[in-house]
């Protein structure tokens, strides 16, 4: 194999893996803290991409505005979902799951009706391409990788702030956190907002590379599920590691196996779960009763 092709695949894999990492980090944050699975995460990603598209391509605002707006808008929508739907579904894990699925269905169908099933592409943000020792990379892809790393780092530092510490305390034990004066309802809203906002900004990040599409939310969500199963439910380092692994497998697999790529990926999950039921870096996760 040529070295150039190898590095090309490497860069593509890291770019895709970076996107998966950002979305999966949001999902893992919500899963770990609130012990619920947000099935609408993929739709937040899709809506984020359309917010970015609307602001940057239709209204010709700078890309940075699109990114921040995607984050803020999806954070708001996530907070609304948490405040007005999920809070009332604490009957059980399953009810919450179905409520988010129902929300995802509504959002998905509305966006199919409004935006249609066509791809929408954006003109490149940073024009041109970088040539590094025979590898050609579009600057947008590099920008994506850099911003993805920055976002993960920002999430890491967010967890060190006072609010982040409160989130971690609630993750550890909700009742004890309550005794320390932490309002877990507020923390849940903040967690949900950050988790959904991360999905939204990831959608805006992928926009210059892959474009926006009304059904992109469902296809990425399957991948994110794989990521969090492989990484370990609720384990943040596991999710990041698994996102990179899946991104790389996808980009190299596409080069070698072609159409059977996804099949190979999902089938390799079974032996992994046999030996490590909790994923790579996680413990077997219990659904709260």
């Amino acid at each position, binding site marked *: 194999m040529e070295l150039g092709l190898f590095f090309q695949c490497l860069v593509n894999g890291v770019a895709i893996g970076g996107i998966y990492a950002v979305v999966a980090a949001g999902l893992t944050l919500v899963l770990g803290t609130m012990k619920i*699975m947000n099935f609408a995460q993929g739709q937040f990603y899709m809506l984020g991409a359309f917010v970015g598209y609307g602001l940057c391509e239709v209204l010709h605002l700078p890309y940075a505005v699109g990114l921040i707006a995607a984050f803020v808008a999806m954070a708001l929508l996530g907070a609304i979902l948490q405040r007005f*739907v999920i809070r*009332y*579904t604490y*009957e*059980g*894990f*399953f*009810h919450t*799951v*179905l*409520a988010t*699925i*129902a*929300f995802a*269905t*509504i959002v*998905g*169908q*509305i966006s*199919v*009706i409004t935006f249609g099933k066509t791809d929408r592409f954006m003109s490149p943000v940073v024009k041109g391409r970088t040539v590094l020792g025979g590898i050609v990379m579009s600057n947008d892809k590099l920008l994506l990788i850099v911003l993805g790393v920055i976002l993960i780092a920002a999430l890491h530092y967010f967890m060190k702030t006072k609010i982040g510490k409160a989130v971690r305390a609630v993750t550890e034990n909700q009742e004890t956190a309550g005794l320390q004066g932490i309002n877990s309802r507020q923390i849940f809203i903040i967690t949900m907002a950050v988790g959904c906002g991360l999905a939204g900004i990831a959608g805006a990040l992928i926009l210059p590379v892959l474009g926006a599409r009304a059904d992109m939310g*469902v296809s990425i969500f*399957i991948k994110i*599920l*794989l990521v*969090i*199963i492989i990484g370990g*439910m609720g384990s943040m380092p596991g999710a990041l590691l698994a996102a990179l692994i899946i991104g790389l497998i996808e980009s190299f697999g596409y080069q070698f196996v072609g*159409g*059977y790529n*996804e*099949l190979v990926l*999902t*089938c390799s*999950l*079974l032996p992994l*779960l*046999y030996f490590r*039921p*909790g*994923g790579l870096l996680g413990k*077997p*996760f*219990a*659904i709260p*009763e």
Partner: protein
Amino acid sequence: MRKKSLIACALILLVLLPLVVKNPYILHLVIYTCMYSVLGMSFSMMWKNRLITAGTAGFWAVGGYTSALLVTKLAVPFWLAMPAGGVASALFALFIFSIALRGGPLVFFSVSLVSAFIVMEVLGTVSFFGGWEGLLDIPGPRIGPYLFFTKTSFYYMVLAILVLNILAFHALYTSRIGRAWTAIGSSTRLAEVQGVNIYRYRLAASVIGCFWAGVIGSFYAHYQNLLIPTTFSFLCSIYVQMYALIGGLNYFIAGPIVGSFVMVFLPELLRAGQEYQPIFFGALLILIIIFLPGGLLSIGERLPWLGRLGGRIGRRLRLVSTKS
């Protein structure tokens, strides 16, 4: 005693239904209701063990494709191919879930979702299964010279499957296995202390549930005479969950039947546009989850006056026992 006579009355009414209902479209909807009820009960069996499956459609598809391929390629008679579809689905479930259940309910959930996705991808991409255009020209079942062709004949067939399914599930739920499942459902830890092997009982529930999903998949294949992979998408599994939840999650047999009846006939009454249906379903589901988490059958418990009214009418009509 009253309950038994009530059930007998309902059964007689169902048997006589095709004599009254001449409209084939309504009969078609009733057939769909029965089919979805079987799928919903397969879901409820796993839910009794607090396992949430999001892959019912995948096992439905496995049963349907197995049976259809056996009949078209190997000329196996339908009456053998139908149990074979169920067995294929059960074996697939045994293979997948014996691994997935080691990781607990959430892994079970995700793996069932992923496996349904794999099934759809395989059926679509591998040309042996007919590809994305689907498997066409599946012959209908026949007994000797009699070919199942009319809606009425199919209706009796699906009714027989449904009744068999209900009897089998009722027998299981009242047996020792069913009590173990109930114990697991109320508290896994307590059941474990009592000596119930949770892994095995959960595996048994998922395999039996998937067997029936496969059987009804085989019926679906020969009723529709064609199979298209996109029928068995993620959305279909979600609909099955909705049927069980809308009827009532704690009513393991009646819940899915009521839920699928409502969800099949309500859109027909509303005559909403096809593309607006998912929005309507989603909104209805959210409302039911928030305001009626026990499903439609729990409405009597939720609104006591309605329950009392129902009881009074029932006693007047001698449907419900006067004691209670």
